[in-house]
């Protein structure tokens, strides 16, 4: 397919690996922020082909994984109501809440539907005026414009039976949180290119200035990921720290102005707890007062939640890059994609799921040593 095949060319990848070999003289650790990039890296074995001095640390960029447990439990409570159709991206259905997941709600008779586009949920609301239709609006900045459009459309069409349970998270505050941590090992960041497609690159300049780390806007195909890695290493070896765009066919410095205008209207910044990590200040979006009538948290009183995280799951450490998934004792034994203890084993962007899919027969270094 055009714009996919060219960026999967193994011969060009080999050249990039060779150039990286030439560039690197010292040990460096890079974090790919986005879980989609983690999957690309693990699937293609990029981390295993890099020089030994280059270490990739997998970041927290998996919205399904970081959606707070309390929000999952709220979703489950709302989805269990008889008068409600609960719509969600497919990834969320197997994410474990404190006691069960959306699949179990559905098998117990709840009307839980998977949507591809958030607008499908608005159509379902229009077609079912006697039901409350709730959309689980999660994601990073990439997904936010699509989710925002649901409430814009609902308002325009005068739909009073539609609402959204919002758990939006933002990339720059997460980078700031990781970079401010006293024991961070990350020397440079690969920014999630599709986030920058929407938001542009300006909000990364203050991070570079504050933490003196290179941030390279990076795409998702193997050559894109390698180009992001190559440019980050070049900056590090040359003692530079800049925002650099290694994904110019999709990312413009100003981002997508039409999307940004709608985001500014629909959302406002809020503090947000990240599952496994904790509260990160100003790291989320919630509906602005103009759209609060569409906020499922306001519409449905959810009480008596007893939030309880699995005591065995170490997804928090995985999300912060402190351990690799296969260093967890539960990995591949008591925790699998079919029976996950944590969301990182569920999502198509979760690091544990990537390792389960492509690396579960490898013996982790810690065990080997």
């Amino acid at each position: 397919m055009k714009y996919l095949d060219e960026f999967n060319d193994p011969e060009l990848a080999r050249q990039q690996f060779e150039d990286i070999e030439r560039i690197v003289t010292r040990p460096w650790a890079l974090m790919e922020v986005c879980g989609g990039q983690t999957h690309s890296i693990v699937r293609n074995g990029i981390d295993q082909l890099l020089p030994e001095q280059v270490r990739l640390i997998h970041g927290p960029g998996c919205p399904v994984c970081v959606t707070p447990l309390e929000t999952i439990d709220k979703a489950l409570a709302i989805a269990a109501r008889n008068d409600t159709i609960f719509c969600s991206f497919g990834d969320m259905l197997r994410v474990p809440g404190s006691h069960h997941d959306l699949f179990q709600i559905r098998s117990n008779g709840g009307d839980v539907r998977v949507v591809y586009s958030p607008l499908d949920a608005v159509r379902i609301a229009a077609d079912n005026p006697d039901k409350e239709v709730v959309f689980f609006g999660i994601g990073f900045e990439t997904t936010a414009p699509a989710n925002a459009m649901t409430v814009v459309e609902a308002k325009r069409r005068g739909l009073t039976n539609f609402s959204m349970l919002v758990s939006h998270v933002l990339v720059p505050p997460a980078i700031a949180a990781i970079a401010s941590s006293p024991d961070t090992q990350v020397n440079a960041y690969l920014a999630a290119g599709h986030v920058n497609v929407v938001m542009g690159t300006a909000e990364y300049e203050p991070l570079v200035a504050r933490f003196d780390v290179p941030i390279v806007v990076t795409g998702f195909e193997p050559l894109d990921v390698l180009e992001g890695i190559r440019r980050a290493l070049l900056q590090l070896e040359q003692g530079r720290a800049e925002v650099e765009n290694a994904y110019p066919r999709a990312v413009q410095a100003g981002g997508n102005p039409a999307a940004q205008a709608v985001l500014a209207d629909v959302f406002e910044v809020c503090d947000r707890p990240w599952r496994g990590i904790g509260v990160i200040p100003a790291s989320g979006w919630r509906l602005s007062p103009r759209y609060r009538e569409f906020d499922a948290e306001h519409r449905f009183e959810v009480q008596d939640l007893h939030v309880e995280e699995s005591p065995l799951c170490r997804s928090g450490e995985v999300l912060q890059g402190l351990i690799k998934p296969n260093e967890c004792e539960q990995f591949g034994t008591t925790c699998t994609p079919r029976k996950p203890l944590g969301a990182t084993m569920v999502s198509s962007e979760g690091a544990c799921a990537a390792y389960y899919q492509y690396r579960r027969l490898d013996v982790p270094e810690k065990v080997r040593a």
Partner: protein
Amino acid sequence: MCLGVPGRIEAIRDEQGTPMASVDFGGIRKDVCLAYLPEAEVGDYTLVHVGFAITRIDEASALETLELIRSIGNLAEELGEEPADVAPAPDPVAGAARGGDPLAGSRSVTGGDDA
């Protein structure tokens, strides 16, 4: 969740006030909302995320990136096997691959506060 798939816009229509497109993904066609890409035209390649076109894919930039990566190999051949005293290699972004206005995005975001 953050994955975007490139596809070619085959047709554009108005659906109750919302601009929609039929987009071809290597033989599979899907309906895509164009609300965030109002300037899109039939024949454009766009990146689609959860049913929304979020950007136009810039062919010139795509070719530049590929050319840049190819030039890394040429550069290596030119430099032979002993690049130690020229490593770190001359920045290929600033160098060989930059004819005309390549990697415009790259230049605009890296400009300014060089360390």
